[in-house]
């Protein structure tokens, strides 16, 4: 197989529209995957854009106690605040710009609900939840909880109109502070109108962009269609860089995600993502028996 030129710019493989659905106790999400069109994006299992939703006092809802096993959940907030509690004893309030990287591993029960401030006063909730798969040998690792407030998550910008928050990986010479089990890039870019940026993404990584707001082109080919809000842009693995350009008249905000594919058999049911059907059935049995844990504080 011919080696890939790491200086080459990746082409766009295709674009997927996200679907709108309801999660937890009834909050709206935009979901590029899993959908009927795209069930996963190895090593990523799910991406949900929560909101943006404006709640009146007393209206906001979240996802009360529920389990996970076999992967990691990553929550990144843009607006509003969520309260997290889990069966390992962790507690946190996630505010705009903060990131929570929770390795469920062998199993965690957690709750993700609007903070008291949002519940009492109302307000906007907007954020992301990403599920990152774990390889078979790490699916039953002990749970791990990492939480970083906004001022501890590195950001960088340049004079060309590019701003980036580095959740995982590297951009504009700035490195993430979060430890990941698998090699992952997770970047939130905002490009001003007319701005363009080349970002290194190793060719062996699967990579995509998810547009939050604005319009942009994600290839150097000017015939490539522009993408907008709610679009997932899938990159081919034919290069080691991706090119993003704001083609609109307002800021282009998007996530750029990449990861080394795990390439393993997968069996999933709801919040359990394992390698075999038997392992999923065991997870459900363990949860029903209380062996995954309970939140008791």
């Amino acid at each position: 197989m011919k080696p890939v030129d790491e200086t080459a710019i990746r082409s766009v493989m295709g674009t997927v529209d996200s679907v709108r659905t309801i999660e937890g106790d009834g909050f709206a999400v935009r979901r590029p995957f899993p959908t009927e069109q795209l069930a996963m994006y190895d090593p990523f299992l799910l991406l949900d854009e929560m909101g943006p939703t404006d709640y009146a006092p007393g209206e906001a809802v979240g996802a009360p106690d529920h389990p996970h096993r076999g992967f990691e959940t990553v929550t990144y907030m843009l607006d509003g605040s969520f309260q997290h509690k889990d069966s390992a004893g962790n507690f946190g309030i996630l505010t705009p710009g903060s990131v929570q990287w929770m390795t469920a591993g062998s199993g965690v029960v957690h709750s993700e609900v609007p903070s008291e401030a949002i519940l009492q006063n109302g307000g906007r909730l907007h954020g992301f939840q990403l599920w990152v798969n774990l390889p078979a040998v790490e699916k039953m690792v002990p749970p791990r909880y990492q939480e970083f407030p906004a001022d501890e998550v590195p950001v960088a910008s340049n004079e060309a109109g590019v701003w980036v928050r580095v959740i995982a990986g590297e951009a504009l010479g700035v490195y993430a502070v979060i430890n990941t089990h698998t090699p992952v890039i997770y970047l939130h870019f905002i490009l001003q109108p007319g701005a363009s940026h080349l970002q290194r993404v190793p060719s062996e990584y699967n990579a995509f962009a998810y547009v939050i707001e604005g319009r942009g082109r994600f290839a150097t080919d000017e015939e490539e269609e522009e993408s907008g809000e709610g679009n997932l842009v899938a990159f081919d693995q034919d290069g080691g860089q991706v090119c993003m350009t704001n083609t609109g008249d307002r800021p282009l905000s998007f996530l750029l995600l990449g990861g080394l594919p795990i390439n393993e058999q997968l069996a999933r049911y709801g919040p359990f993502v394992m390698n075999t059907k038997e392992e999923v059935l065991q997870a459900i049995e363990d949860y029903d028996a209380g062996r995954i844990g309970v939140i008791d504080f």
Partner: protein
Amino acid sequence: MNTEDKELGFPKDLVALSSCEHSSNKPFCGKTHAASAQAIWGLVNMPEAMEF
């Protein structure tokens, strides 16, 4: 490539799988996922007929 793949309309590298219990060296699983358009974060009830 089977009919499911063709329906997806992706240019390449999509794999349609007989189930979500799969072995693949491709980036995508193209299987229609039973739980794709519903609440799945807390889907813990044992279904009568679990689809894999």
